[in-house]
């Protein structure tokens, strides 16, 4: 039960350390809010859309959308010229039933705003049209029934099929909505970073104050110390992870197709890996400052290998490094859950690798304490 006693003690110390607690909980929120300001699809982005041969009703509908200005062009060439000269942000061209959309896409948020506005205008428009057609159809039907009870019913050719949309991008592609794509990975990075930061300090403080020596002069087992730390910081990591995930999802408005609980679970696993990693590295540091030095060397670079920048286009050795980056696996799993609703059962590889990291690092920690006591 020494594990439990160590856990309670560490928790007690943590709860009394208001500064650290604040850092653990407020700093991630603060950064995420900043990110929200800097990156997010701002509702007030003003876009100017050029339309070519678009019906008047749709033009009107579009024009009524907030922050959207509509300019009509007689032909595509004129519109393209305007697009090139940065007078408009997108072109919408109607070809009978279908629409062709061309985005400048230099600003991903404008592209997203245009898409959204057009979709809304289109559905509002077709709704109005459908209403009209429906009344027409019902009156026609009633007439038919009255006049020709025996005549074969002529099928009215109401084509209610959804119009086809084709998207074109002058710059980049559909994935240029960078922020949306990196958010699941970024979220993992924050979880990793903040858990690492705190846990690394934990055992270090115990060592520099001499209490570790004193602790190791009792018959405590090494694994009891490691587990005690893992448990206490693990409990804190649960709260921290839930907080970071919820803030990311709610504040930054990430649409989660899968289960939020699964996203939390994946990130919690990552948090435990970060915890074990932080404890391990702290045994190689002699002061808080030396611990800090690990951050630019071992923590920040992880972000480059995490999949935020697509890895398939990178050199083989870069890819090889990415296989030992925990954030890559959690990011991959979280992305799949968020964007495609993949269940945990189909993420065995990612979860398995994270578990291997966790078990491996924990074992190393237990072994690592041998440096301070040989048994």
């Amino acid at each position, binding site marked *: 039960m020494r594990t439990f006693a160590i856990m309670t003690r560490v928790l007690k*110390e943590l709860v009394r350390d208001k500064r650290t607690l604040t850092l653990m909980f407020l700093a991630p929120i603060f950064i995420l809010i900043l990110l929200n300001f800097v990156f997010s699809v701002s509702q007030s982005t003003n876009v100017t859309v050029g339309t070519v041969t678009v019906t008047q009703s749709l033009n009107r509908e579009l024009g009524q959308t907030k922050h959207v200005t509509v300019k009509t062009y007689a032909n595509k060439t004129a519109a393209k010229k305007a697009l090139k000269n940065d007078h408009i942000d997108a072109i919408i061209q109607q070809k009978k039933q279908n629409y062709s959309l061309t985005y400048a896409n230099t600003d991903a948020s404008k592209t997203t705003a245009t898409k959204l506005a057009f979709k809304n205008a289109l559905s509002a428009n077709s709704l109005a049209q459908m209403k009209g057609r429906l009344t027409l159809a019902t009156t026609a039907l009633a007439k038919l029934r009255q006049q020709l009870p025996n005549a074969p019913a002529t099928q009215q050719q109401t084509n209610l099929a959804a119009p086809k949309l084709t998207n074109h991008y002058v710059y980049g592609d559909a994935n240029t909505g960078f922020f949306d794509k990196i958010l699941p990975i970024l979220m993992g990075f924050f979880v990793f970073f903040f858990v690492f930061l705190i846990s690394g300090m934990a055992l270090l403080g115990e060592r520099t104050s*001499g209490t570790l020596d004193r602790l*190791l002069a*009792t018959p405590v087992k090494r694994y009891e110390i490691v587990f005690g730390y893992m448990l206490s910081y693990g409990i804190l990591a649960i709260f921290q992870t839930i907080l970071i995930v919820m803030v990311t999802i709610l504040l930054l408005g990430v649409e989660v197709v899968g289960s939020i609980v699964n996203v939390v679970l994946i990130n919690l696993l990552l948090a435990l890996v970060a915890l074990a990693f932080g404890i391990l590295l702290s045994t190689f540091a002699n002061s808080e400052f030396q611990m800090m030095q690990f951050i630019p060397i071992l923590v920040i670079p992880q972000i480059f290998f995490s999949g935020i920048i697509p890895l398939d286009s990178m050199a083989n050795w870069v890819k090889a490094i990415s296989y030992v980056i925990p954030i890559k696996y959690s990011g991959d799993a979280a992305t799949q859950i968020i964007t495609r609703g993949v269940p945990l059962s189909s993420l065995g590889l990612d979860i398995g690798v994270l578990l291997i990291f966790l078990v491996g690092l924990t074992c190393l920690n237990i072994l690592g304490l041998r440096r301070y006591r040989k048994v």
Partner: protein
Amino acid sequence: MASASITLTHLVKKFGPQTVLKDINLTVQPGEIVGLIGPSGSGKSTVIKTALGMELADGGQATVFGQQMPQRQLLARIGYMAQTDALYEALSGKENLVFFAKMKGLTKTTITAAITHVATVVDLTADLNKRVSGYSGGMKRRLSLAIALLGKPELLILDEPTVGIDPALRRQVWRELDKVRDAGSSILITTHVMDEAELTDRVALLLGGEVIAFATPAQLKQQYQVATIEDVFLKAEGVTL
């Protein structure tokens, strides 16, 4: 015959190029207080850490209760007080005591009584619920000693326990150490306060990485033909009296 509590034979310890302990021979028998005396930096703490297995010896042998250290189970029978006050500052004195009592494996039923006892010995009963961060240097030292005394260990290893403790309390601490000794435990205590050496059963003088003399205080004074242990030391160091 019961094995000695501590036996150090030809112990050598180096830190890089510096040989701190050249050839240390020392025994601590059950039921005696051995004082390890030497100037600051002579290697007293190093002797203790090597004996406990916290530092790896470069030569010679260190056994505790007849067994080679480090041995995890043996640690349950040892009360160790380091030279630095290694305490959890965010916790109260009592919380520190409870924590270390649990680490030493004291059972739940005995913990409260044990804490009450050691707190009385070091005169900390009134301050037990204060956070250690608010303790004075002397109070921390006393708490540190109290932790070492927890669980009535068979062997007490105390590294400069009386630094910063006022004379009246120092007397009280020594009285307690005598009691512990009389109950059959053994004590290895380091100090650079020479008059404290008079209170031990045997004194080891540590100088130049070697134990240059190891006998009862009376024998030492006779051997060096001086009146106090302090003079023994000065004479051994070659200072003309």
